């Protein structure tokens, strides 16, 4: 994109001149503009994909077609009414619910042509299980057992619209029904229900124009308007699928919340791996960098070789070793099967650049190799150790293969990536409940994301070793 002019053609075309300086300057600016356009375009495609996937994880139906970019979960006016409804239902504007003392005002507005009659819809708090899969099995309380609905008022309105086909003015009628949904005061159990589903059945001649909270979906060919939860609270509305993925992945025998267990397992594995890698690689890296003895060259060759060979080549034997040690289904097994070669090379590189003179001075004063290493070299190796720890943490947190092979049961023993796979099998495959799967995926990257933001300058300097996979 650099401007170069052919010097030798000047004489042949004496009638034409070179581009004036101002034009050349314009071209320089234009090429710069192109470069930035490419940069921005690339960044947009990259971040856009994640942004859209994140938006979809908030939706009730991430697979809706066509994809809407404006939906209730990102609209501030809906947030306000959701918070209001959550406060009325359970005194909690953030996460909502339906609790004793709950008293909700909910209105529906129907519209129809002036010559049609608008009749009162049949409303109900249905006994409905949320979502699909596991959720159905663990739900034991239903808002329908505690809700009393009464119609407290109606109002009528008329308006005119231009008919799109005939072009004539057509008069319409709209009718608003105000309902009051109360928590049954005769119930003494004091149970708080997480969500309050709501349905309204009306003939197809009248359309639902407005409601306190946007309708979740229309069922039975548009006759039943259905809300999954009319007391969501603001966060309960926005992060519905995130709350569900945490609450609904439950071990059916113990009742534990699996997602937290998985996160805990992955943390144990990652921290263990960090310690394991740092100990092994700093010791071995120092030996490879600083000491001369027979066999050193061979060790180095094996280190390189071990980075070339896929883990699947060694996994059968490693699985057997772990099995024979009785360590299957433990976090410890996943920590110890990893080979530290890449980390060893990283430390070797660092120690080679470490000034020899300091060590030699310590040696002259009578310190042995181990003392030099622990008291002189290691305290100065902090940057390399941090890079090493980050690589190990990220690698272990994201590792799929070893946890997949070595930890298969019980469900609470899985690591996050394998847990995500089980989530997909129970929600994504048959049920099509993709918002849960996406929410799980996004929750799973939070720890690495935080680490990435905190230690960014260390990570980016070492992209060669982790960038390719």
């Amino acid at each position, binding site marked *: 994109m*650099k401007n*170069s*002019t*052919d*010097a030798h053609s000047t004489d042949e075309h004496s009638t*034409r*001149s*070179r581009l004036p300086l101002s*034009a050349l300057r*314009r*071209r320089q600016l*234009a090429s710069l*503009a192109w*470069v930035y356009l*490419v*940069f921005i375009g*690339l*960044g947009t495609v990259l*971040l856009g*994909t994640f942004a859209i996937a994140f938006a979809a994880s908030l939706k009730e139906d991430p697979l809706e*077609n*066509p*994809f809407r970019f404006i939906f209730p979960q990102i609209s501030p006016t809906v947030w306000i009414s959701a918070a209001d409804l959550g406060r009325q239902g359970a005194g909690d504007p953030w996460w909502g619910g339906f609790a004793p003392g709950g008293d909700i005002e909910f209105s529906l507005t129907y519209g129809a042509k002036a010559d049609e009659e608008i009749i009162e819809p049949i409303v109900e708090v249905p006994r409905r299980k949320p979502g699909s899969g596991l959720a159905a099995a663990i739900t034991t309380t239903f808002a329908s057992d505690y809700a009393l609905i009464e119609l407290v008022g109606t109002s009528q309105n008329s308006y005119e619209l231009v008919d799109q086909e005939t072009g004539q003015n057509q008069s319409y009628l709209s009718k608003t029904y105000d309902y009051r949904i109360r928590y049954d005061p005769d119930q003494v159990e004091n149970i708080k229900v997480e969500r309050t589903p709501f349905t309204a059945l009306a003939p197809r001649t009248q359309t639902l124009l407005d409601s306190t909270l946007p309708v979740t979906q229309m069922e039975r060919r548009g006759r039943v308007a259905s809300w999954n939860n009319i007391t969501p609270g603001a966060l309960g509305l926005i992060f519905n699928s995130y709350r569900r993925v945490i609450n609904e992945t439950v071990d059916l025998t113990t009742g534990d919340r699996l997602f937290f267990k998985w996160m805990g397992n992955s943390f144990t594995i990652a921290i263990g791996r960090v310690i394991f890698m740092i*100990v092994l690689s700093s*010791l*071995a890296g120092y*030996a490879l960098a600083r*000491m001369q*003895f027979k066999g050193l060259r061979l*060790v180095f060759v094996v280190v390189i070789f071990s980075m070339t*060979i*896929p*883990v*699947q*080549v*060694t*996994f*059968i034997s*490693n699985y057997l*070793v772990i099995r024979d040690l009785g360590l299957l289904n433990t976090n410890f097994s996943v920590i110890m099967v990893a*080979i*530290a070669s890449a980390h060893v090379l990283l430390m070797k590189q660092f120690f080679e650049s470490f000034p020899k003179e300091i060590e030699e001075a310590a040696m002259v004063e009578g310190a042995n190799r181990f003392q030099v290493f622990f008291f002189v070299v290691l305290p100065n190796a902090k940057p390399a150790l941090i890079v090493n720890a980050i690589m190990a943490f990220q690698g272990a947190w*994201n590792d*799929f*293969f070893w946890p997949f092979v070595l930890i298969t049961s019980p469900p609470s023993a899985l690591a996050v*990536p394998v847990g995500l*796979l089980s989530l*997909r099998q129970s929600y994504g*495959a048959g049920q099509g409940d993709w918002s849960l799967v996406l929410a799980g*995926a*996004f929750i799973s*990257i939070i720890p*690495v994301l935080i680490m*990435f933001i905190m230690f*960014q300058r260390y*990570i*980016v300097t070492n*992209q060669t070793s*982790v*960038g390719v996979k």
Partner: protein
Amino acid sequence: MKRFNSNQAFSGWMFLAPFLVSLGVFFLWAILRTAWFSFTDYNLFAEPNFVGLENFTSLVLDELFIFALRNSISFALIVTGAQTILALLLAILVNSAARAKGVARTIFYFPSIMSSAAMTLIFLWLFQRQGLMSGMVGNFVNLRWVILSFFVIAIVIQLALVAMARRKYIGVKLFDPYFLLISVLVALISAVIIRMGGFVPVYDEKLLISWLNTREVFLFMPRTLWSVALMNIFTTVPTLMLLFLAGLQSVPISLYDAAKMDGANVFHRFFNVTLPSLTPVTFAVVTLGLIGTLQMFDQVAILGAAAPLESRVTLAFYTYYNTFPPGGSPNIGLASASALTLGVLTVLIVFLQRRFGIKEKLE
């Protein structure tokens, strides 16, 4: 002196000991055992019996293995090639925007911190039959006439502008950046007008594409794996681009100046100055890319029932599949034989690459 040396050797081995134990048990011993198993009928429970080359012959006769071999090799070559070339081109394209710093760097590095599991799940959603990817491709197909007119208008205006300028000036290039900016902008506005005014047909067909659940093969690789390849390239290219960018910015400018003085044009400078100085980076990118893609496993396992086995199986997955066959008894002999094949194949491809492809160092 002798004592000192043996002393050093002793402490050297002591430093290495923990790592060597791990390497010995979980790598060297594991490879030897895999090699031994590949000549036996081991099934995880009964004592292994030596069966000679039987496993290797049944491997060659197994259709699924042939699929796995084909898929692994094409996937590795296609993804490594595409990601390297794309990253290199992008790096060269944006090189003049000084260095990618701060926010830009963070954005481009972001995909590579994500786990393959999270990434694959997001892409699985994207690649559903009625998903967003189908919707986007559908949009392009429905707007094909608008898009075509955009390109026609852009090309016509660019050619006209260049032709006009060439009558007066010399040294106006076909892709003159200033004119290109004008013609693309004008074409964009006209395309919007054409779309709004309905001057060309715009279709409203709903396109459903089976990105994953298909047996169709396109250019030596099932469509399923093309989708996976797309995802891999998408996640690696930005990070690799940063690597190349770092490499490019370490090329001394004096080299370019010298080449310019010698009368080298853009292409000469690219092939004779830029590419050679990027050789070490390119070698690392290609080698690590080949090793990484040859052992592609996570995406295949996470795809699971979303795609037929033969369209997603790779050598790595084939090995796992025979070790823990769903509902069958483990066939460790066969699994070991395919694991060994994968290992030898990886070493062979990396060696061939090094020998005939991009070298480690400048010559």
